[in-house]
């Protein structure tokens, strides 16, 4: 059993895992001498849940347990985080001038490719998390995009929290086009990309938190072709330049 403490989204988590891999993945979030808000002890049964899901999704038999346990820790933590007004949104989160933007879409749409365009074109771009940022709903009404170690294949992340300004729902298209949309328009896709707990009470809490989003966050539909030259400019002009 391996025990370590991490701090994510302002919460201290004491984790006990079977393999060393989760601790290695979480290395930039390790804290010491802090009192834990959340205790997570992973069992073989917990890992089995992720094994079944992984095998069903990727048609791979008998994946390495240490690898699976990283996902197990993420899943168990995401479930517990709902009690701390924090939810997981599948997307690539970046920050510019202390404002964050989450590009959300199903896997394979081009979130990471687009995120890399921001890094290339705008040196002040900070990547909060390339795949699974947490959104923390604060008591003062603000919503923070929080870094986490679960950051997809590229593993690009920063241990930071930045106020959320916009959620951009990406879809592949021939030409680049971005437009602001209402929360009602964004909601079905947004929900698909949000972690949805099995527990009904936790799911209802997730929905209540999501209903706070339109108070401070704008929503955009981004029809995106990462291979066209104007891709970054179209997004940047709408999201950052024209919003100053």
């Amino acid at each position, binding site marked *: 059993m391996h025990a370590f403490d991490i701090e994510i989204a302002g919460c201290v988590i004491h984790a006990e895992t079977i393999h060393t891999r989760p601790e290695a993945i979480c290395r930039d979030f390790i804290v010491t001498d802090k009192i834990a808000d959340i205790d997570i002890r992973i069992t073989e049964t917990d890992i089995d849940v992720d094994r079944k899901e992984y095998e069903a999704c990727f048609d791979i038999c008998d994946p390495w347990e240490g690898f699976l346990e990283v996902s197990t820790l993420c899943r168990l933590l995401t479930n517990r985080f709902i009690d701390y007004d924090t939810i997981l949104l599948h997307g690539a989160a970046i920050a510019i001038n202390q404002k964050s933007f989450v590009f959300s879409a199903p896997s394979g749409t081009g979130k990471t490719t687009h995120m890399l365009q921001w890094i290339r074109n705008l040196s002040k771009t900070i990547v909060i998390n390339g795949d699974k940022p947490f959104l923390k709903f604060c008591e003062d009404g603000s919503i923070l995009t929080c870094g986490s170690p679960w950051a997809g294949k590229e593993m690009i992340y920063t241990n930071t929290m930045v106020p959320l300004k916009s959620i951009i729902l990406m879809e592949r298209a021939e030409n680049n086009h971005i437009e602001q949309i209402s929360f*009602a328009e964004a909601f079905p896709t947004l929900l698909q990309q949000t972690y949805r707990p099995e527990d009904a009470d936790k799911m209802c809490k997730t929905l209540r938190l999501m209903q706070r989003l339109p108070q401070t966050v704008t929503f955009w539909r981004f029809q995106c072709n990462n291979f066209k030259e104007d891709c970054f400019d179209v997004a940047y002009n709408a999201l950052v330049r024209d919003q100053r």
Partner: protein
Amino acid sequence: MKLKYDFEVVDMGEEKIAVPVGNGANNLRGVIKLNDEGYEIFKLLLDGKNESEIISAICNKYDNDVETIRGYVECFIKELVKMQIAE
């Protein structure tokens, strides 16, 4: 006839969106967008009312003839069954 899942209805102003919650809810892809009439029927289904109770409740609330309301309700419920949301 009953709903196969529990739902939480999110109020979006112009429309309501019913989101499946709880056991097995993630098997159901997507959400149900409801207009005002659909919301009235859906609320009654969530309360466990059967088809004739729903028709009767809506007739009491709105000044419309029974056959028109029966048509709306039957059509709505048929759609839910087709979407495997109700059984």
